[in-house]
Structure formats: C-alpha cells, structure tokens
C-alpha cells in the first residue's frame, strides 16, 4: 500500500518541479532582457496627492509621455493629505494638493528630509455646489451654505430655504468628504469660516466623483466637489457672497476675476528647489501646452501673465 503511493506521487512531482524551474528561467530571461537592452534609461517622477487633481495630473502625465518619452510620470491619488504625508516622508518627487501645506507639516518635512517644501501654483479649481437636476433652486449664498453645513446651523429642510421639493425629499441630504480631504478642509475654511466645524450626520464620500454621483441619484441632496467633476445629471448652483449680492456660476472667467467665491489654487510641491527632469516637468506644466490641459480637464488655467513662478 505504501510503495505504489510513494512512487506515484514522486512521478507526478518531478515534471511539475521541472516545469516551475523552466518557467522561472524563462521569466528571468525576459526580465533581464527587458531591463538591459530594451530602452535607454527611463526617469520616473513620482507624483501623488489630491483626489481633485488626479484626473488632471493623469492627463498631464499622458501628454508629457509624448513630449518627453524618456520620462515617465507615475500618478496616484488618495487625497491632499496623502500627498503631503508622502512629502513629509520624502517618498515622492511632486505632491499635488488642493490646499496649502501647513507650517507644521512643512517643519516635519524639513526635519525628516532636510529640505523645505517648495510651492508651485499650477491652476485654479472652482469648488462647485451641486444639487439634483430636479431641484428648483438656482442660487445660494455662503451664509445659507454655512447654515446647511456648519455645526450649529439651523437649516435642515429644503422648505426652510423656500424650496418646494416633492414629497419625501424635503430633508436636505448633505453630502460631504472624508475628514482629511483637501476639498473638505478648503470648504470648511472658505464657507463655514475659520474654526467652525461641519454639522455631524453628513454622508462623507471618499472621492470627488462619488459626491457628484450620489447627488445625481438623490433628489434631496446637496454636495460640493471640483467643477471638473460636473455631469449632466446634476446642477451647479450660482453662489453669492451675501444675500442681496449677485450670484456667480463656477466658470473660468468668474474664477479668474475672483467673483466666484469658492475657488482655490491647485498646487504642486517639491522638496527643495526642483532640478533636472522634475524641473523640466514643472516648466512644461506651466507652459501653454500644460495649461491647455488644465482647461480641457475642466479646471481654470493660470492667467497669461504674472502669477507664474
């Protein structure tokens, strides 16, 4: 009973081991040839951060691959916080953020890596306030937004805003972002005011796109997200600074002439003064070709003269 079993198992294992060895050899050969003879040196630029900017950064990276084939820009998202954390740990070449790096974060980066983060403005984003297409509301003031979103704010129902919604949709469904997103931090500062917090009970989505999608599916919802994420099933509200003042739509012109009140710069950070390929890449991002991509991605390019660093 014992011997035949042993023999049969041995006869099975031998070819299997052979096959694995063969496969390993073949893979090794392929891997070697790939790394040595295929191409000249390829420089990799690591680019991480803001979820708002991830589509834009990806579009830049793809266009730059055609412009400079020897450089590959690897883009990942995760949020401004992720980008800044990577900067603090020195694991990234360029961090994308939709908020400014705080002094204490800058100090941590200096302590860990010996270099101070250097800021580059690469475009603007208007933070649009989205509601469902079926919502009759067209404009809103910053005070109303604060009443809806801020801790202690009184507005909970659409009827309090003078908006008549179909039965069952009167409750304002606040859609927000997870608490360490740059968009969340910017909206908190620009709309709720310094030091104020969000009202608890908002639906905290994990991405710019998720906010717009949930709003599109929920008649009673209101949400904020980058203007580049607009889809046809939602409506962007015009926003006024105060009641009685004119309201402005989130457009390129209104962002550049500062009439739209919830707009912010899009930033890229490097550790210390950029050099070599990273510097070339940032220069290209600031060039007309790079800024055209800002426009086609749905964001606001930098004004033609000045403001460039």
């Amino acid at each position, binding site marked *: 009973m014992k011997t035949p079993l042993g023999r049969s198992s041995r006869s099975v294992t031998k070819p299997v081991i052979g096959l694995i060895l063969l496969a390993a050899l073949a893979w090794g050969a392929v891997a070697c040839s790939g790394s040595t003879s295929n191409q000249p040196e390829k420089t990799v630029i690591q680019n991480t951060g803001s979820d708002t900017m991830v589509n834009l950064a990806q579009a830049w990276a793809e266009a730059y691959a055609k412009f400079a084939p020897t450089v590959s820009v690897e883009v990942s998202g995760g949020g401004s916080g992720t980008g800044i954390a990577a900067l603090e740990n020195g694991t990234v070449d360029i961090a994308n953020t939709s908020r400014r790096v705080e002094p204490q974060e800058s100090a941590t980066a200096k302590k860990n890596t010996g270099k101070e983060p250097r800021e580059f403005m690469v475009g603007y984003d208007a933070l649009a306030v989205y509601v469902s297409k079926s919502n009759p509301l067209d404009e809103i003031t910053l005070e109303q937004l604060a009443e809806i979103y801020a801790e202690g704010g009184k507005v909970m129902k659409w009827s309090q805003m003078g908006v008549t919604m179909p039965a069952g949709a009167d409750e304002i469904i606040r859609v927000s972002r997870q608490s*360490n997103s740059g968009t969340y931090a910017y909206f908190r500062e620009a709309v709720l005011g310094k030091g104020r917090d969000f009202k*608890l009970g908002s639906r905290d989505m994990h991405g710019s796109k998720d906010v717009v999608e949930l709003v599109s599916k929920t008649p009673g919802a209101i949400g904020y997200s980058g203007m580049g994420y607009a889809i046809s099933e939602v409506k962007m509200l015009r926003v006024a600074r105060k009641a009685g003042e004119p309201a402005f739509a989130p457009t390129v012109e209104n962002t550049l002439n500062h009439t739209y009140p919830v707009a912010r710069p899009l930033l890229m950070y490097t550790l210390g003064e950029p050099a070599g390929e990273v510097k070339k890449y940032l220069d290209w991002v600031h060039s007309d070709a790079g800024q055209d991509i800002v426009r086609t991605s749905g964001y606001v390019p930098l004004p033609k003269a000045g403001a460039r660093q």
Partner: protein
Amino acid sequence: MQTRRRWEILVETAIESLIRLCGISAILFVFGIFFFVFREGAGFLFSGFNPREFFTSPEWYPTSQSHVRYGVLALIAGTASVTALAMALAVPFGIGAAIFVSEFCGPRWKETLKITIELLAAIPSVVWGFIGLTVLNPLIMRTFGVPIGLTVLNGGLVLALMSVPIIVSIGEDALKAVPDSYREAALALGVTRWQLVYRVLLPAAKNGLLAAVLLGVGRAVGETMAVLMATGHAVKIPTSVMDSVRTLTATIAAELGEAPVNSEHYQVLFIIGILLFFITFIVNLTADLVVRGIRHR
C-alpha cells in the same frame, strides 16, 4: 531495511515538528497582530486619551481646526444597529435554511442548496457593497419614499446576506451532529416532522446553533467594505432604520490612509482597532465556549 526505517523516522519527526510550527504560528500571528495594533495606539492611549469622551460622546471631529473631538459613540451605535438588524434578518433565514437542508430536503436538493449557499459565501464584500450602492439604494428610496437609500436597512440587508451562508453551514453541521437515535426514538413515538424539529432537534442542537449565530455576528461586526458603501457613512446615532450611519470598521478604512503616521488621529484609529478586536474576541470566545459546551455533553 534498517536505514530506510531510520530515514522514515527522521522524516516523520521533521513533518511532525513542521506541523506543530504551523499550529503554533497561528497563535503567534494573533498575538503579533494584537501587539502591533496595541503598540500603534498605545502612545495616545496612555497620554491624553479621554475614555469618557471616547465612549460617551457622539462627536467625531478628528481633523477639526478649533476643537478636536474623538467620540465614537455614534460609530459604536452605527456598528451595533447594522449588526442587530442584520442578525434579526439572517438568524431566522439562516437557521430555517439549516433545518431545511439538514432535515427536510432530498439528497440531490441538499447538494444543490449547499453548493449555492457556499457560492454566496464566496462573493467578495466589495461586490456586496456595490449591490447595496447601486441596486438596494434606489429600491429602498422608491419602496419607502425616503430621501436616501444608503441607510441602516441597506447595510443590514447586505450584511444579512453575507452572514447567512456562515449560519447555514455551521447550523447544518450542528443539526447533523444530533444522533440519529434521537430522530428514530421521536418518530417511533409518533411525532410529526414539525414536532421532531421543534421539540427534539432544536433543543439538542441548541449550542451549535448559538455558535453559528455568534460567528455570524462576528462576521457582521468585522465587515468593512460592504458597510462603508451601503450605510451612507454619516456620523449619527440612528433613530430609525432609515437613517444613515457610519461603522467603526468603515471609519478606520476611510481615514487611516490619510492620517499622518503617529499623529493623534492615527493613534485613535488604532484604539478603535483595539476596541473592535475586543468586540470580535469576546464574540468568538463566547462562540467557542458554547461549542465546547456541546462536546462536553
């Protein structure tokens, strides 16, 4: 012949110690994970951690500029409400299915059902979350006329569907473990099938069924991705099943990636991890003690 026997003995001992190592490694891993989670959270746990606020305040403001608050009461309520609803749905269905599979259906049906139920267990949790988000959300909105369908009900339904397979397979094992002599004796006394199940099998398999339920609870408490997508992720103590909630697990999943390493926020998330560890540990320990109770009888 002699050398060969010695060789065999050598191999035997080698394999034996290898297997022993595998067994011990499970314990080592559990303690290792616990140690790691505890170490990451310990810094804050022993300095500045306010247990009273942590357990009694529903205010979760980990990144506030003016007043950082780490209250997880709303998150505990979220986990508890979703789990309770899931169990209220899954236990009757799971135990019912276990009784049907084990006692009432023919062998061919039984095989088909068991394979299908195991298939249900193999669906990844992110797929369940997706079903909650895209199928159940509009369905709940239309059916109940509520403003949003990402609610306790949605999360509870998804979790119930995920826990049923566990309850069925363990429950069925428990019923199968009841000796046939019990069934034969009961039938000889002239009981109906319903009386057999209700008066003989359920009391006899009581512990096993309880263990099945508790393992289902463990599954529901620990589930992350599906509830993150299906419950709406809103910090709020629910007052009805139509409220959105946020669970402990979903909070860790959503925030840990962006919390700076070793910051207070990061450490508090690990303290939530310790809390979850304790909850599931107690649930599993209870299940284990209950199962051991069966063996002793």
